[in-house]
């Protein structure tokens, strides 16, 4: 058990959470709560895997995964934006539908053999830096590097561009945005779609790069929900999302690796000699999500900032409200 290896694997595992969290940040910045991420991720994982099995091209698989999840997200968009229904229940139902479709179409996939995966890459020079080089730049899937790129891009887009400002306006004060000529409905549709694309990407990242294969519902095993928790922890900020996602990735990895060695910190490893203690280790990522939520919610409450003001509230033109 080597700390550098765990952190390296944590960055890889965390990339899944990072994509899903970034997507959720976009949607929620526009004022639409996203509880359907888990379902869209599962659909994406299934679509990516099955298309790759059929065509042998993982990039095509990834593209189809994103489009499939994006399409699914539009159900949520229609129900919450056009019909103005409750975003919590709609998001939940999206998870049910996404899971259902993924299970139905993925029925035969677990028997599929070896497929070609997204290629890996070691960055020259950068990978020579001690520790950092190994953790961040050695033998990672190309998608991990995509994650590094997306965070500053998303940050710049949200805080420093005109459409990013419109995005925030729609989430904070839709009526004001509307009066300035921003089409609130269209903006929200677009960002819910983007969230779908990101969730599909996250799902495809699982099945084509991080833990390849299709294991029905266990493929995502609740990572979509952890991402929903991370959105709140990140206070809707891409950079904080990156920190949270990698930390959770490392934690997931640690839980798997800690049971391996016989000696741990110079002592008999209790997790090796009592393998059933592993069940308590399995609880850790979920327990930490709750802890992280408490921290995120508490600091948001104290600093009176955080959640976009119009989050979860349907916008009806001409009606009084935020």
């Amino acid at each position, binding site marked *: 058990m080597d700390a550098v290896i765990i952190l390296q694997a944590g960055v890889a595992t965390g990339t899944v959470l990072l994509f899903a969290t970034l997507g959720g940040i976009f949607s929620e910045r526009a004022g639409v709560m996203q509880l359907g991420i888990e379902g869209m991720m599962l659909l994406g994982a299934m679509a990516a895997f099955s298309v790759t099995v059929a065509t042998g091209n993982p990039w095509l698989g990834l593209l189809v995964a994103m489009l499939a999840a994006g399409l699914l997200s539009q159900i949520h968009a229609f129900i919450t934006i056009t019909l103005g229904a409750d975003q919590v229940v709609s998001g939940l139902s999206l*998870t*049910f539908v996404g*899971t259902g479709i993924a*299970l*139905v179409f993925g029925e035969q996939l677990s028997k599929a053999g070896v497929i070609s995966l997204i290629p890996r890459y070691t960055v020259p020079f950068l990978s020579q830096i001690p520790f950092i080089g190994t953790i961040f730049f050695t033998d990672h899937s190309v998608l991990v590097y995509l994650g590094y790129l997306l965070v500053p891009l998303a940050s710049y887009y949200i805080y420093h561009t005109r459409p990013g400002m419109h995005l925030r306006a729609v989430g904070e004060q839709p009526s004001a945005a509307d009066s300035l000529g921003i*089409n609130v409905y269209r903006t929200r549709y677009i960002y819910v779609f983007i969230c779908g694309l990101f969730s599909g990407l996250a799902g495809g990242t699982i099945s084509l790069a991080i833990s390849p294969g299709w294991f029905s519902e266990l493929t995502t095993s*609740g990572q979509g929900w952890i991402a929903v928790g991370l959105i709140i922890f990140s206070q809707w900020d891409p950079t904080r999302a990156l920190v949270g996602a990698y930390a959770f990735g490392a934690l997931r990895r640690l839980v798997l690796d800690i049971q391996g060695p016989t000696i741990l910190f110079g002592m008999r490893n209790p997790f090796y000699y009592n393998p059933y203690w592993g069940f308590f280790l399995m609880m850790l990522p979920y327990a930490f999500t709750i802890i992280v939520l408490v921290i995120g919610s508490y600091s948001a409450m104290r600093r009176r900032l955080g959640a976009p003001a119009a989050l979860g509230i349907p916008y009806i033109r001409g009606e009084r409200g935020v």
Partner: protein
Amino acid sequence: MTDLAPVKSNNRFPFQIRFEPRLGELKWWQSLLISLIALIVSLLVGALLLSVVGGNPWKAYSHIAKASFGDIGVFSDTMVKAIPLILIGLACSVAFRMKLWNIGAEGQFFLGAFGASIVVLIPIVPDGSPAWVYISVMALFAMVFGALWGFLPGYLKARFNVNEVISTLMMNYIAVAWNNFFIYAVWSEGGFQMSKMFPRAAWLPRLTDFSKQIPELRGLTTHAGLIFALIMVVVVWFLLSRSRWGYEIRLIGDNPKAANYAGIQIKKNVILVMMLSGGLAGLAGMSEISGVVHRLQGAISPGYGFTGIIVAWLAKLNPYLVVIVSILFGGLILAGREIQPSGIPKLIQGIILVSLIASDYLVRNRVRIIRRTED
């Protein structure tokens, strides 16, 4: 598509459809009709998807109907599936009435099963106790453990404003791992992932147990958990519709600001409602292990906690309708086990929930067909 206000268009069709906010309350048959239409639409969509994946939807549907309501024997099995759904549907109804999204009924169900099990396996009551002692202590422990599992997210919501959707969901995963630890490590019986069989006194009596007196009951598996469930239906109905506390819950759900001004303690009620909700789900866990499997084991729930959400929603949070809807979904779960591909029942449930939420638009808005005016 995004704007439902009337649009001027070039076609000459003299009428147009317009949606207007509904001012008055709906009549009961109107909302029932809307739900029914939503149900039918979702079954049609499900049929479409089924034929896309190469199944025969009508065969699948008639199979579901026959395998769950075909004769008294399978209907009795359907009722067995309906019992936990009723209790969890009630649990969700109570919480949802306050707009408290308890998605953790699944975990509370597992902890209820755990609570009931420790009564037998530690044991809390001495071996050889009479059945009424076993059953009542098990039910009590199940409700307490379920309520504890509901208390934590409720407290976090009240104290730190933690989103209860995620916290309750995370608690589900923790509950499953918790139970698995005890099933694998502590109470494992002969290397199998299950505890020893409970003594007969800890079993909820089934209809078939009375076949000596009434031969027609032979083989019927419906158990006394149904009585618990029906009692809870009345209790929840009374609490929600006839008690002062229920009024507070409904007021918080409809208008938290007004409730706050009226001096209702919202935080206290958040915790109490989560505990009540968890307790009901916990009781479902007890009725399942004491009435069906008679031991603590894994895989005691085919997603009851999540189906319960749809049950509550389809029943419009009405405790009596929860019973009817639970029986329908009990049939779907029972027959769904044999349907290929295995994701179908889950998919159908999802589609039903989607079209139900969408149909809510018709509850809030009325459809008017009006003559296009020249302007």
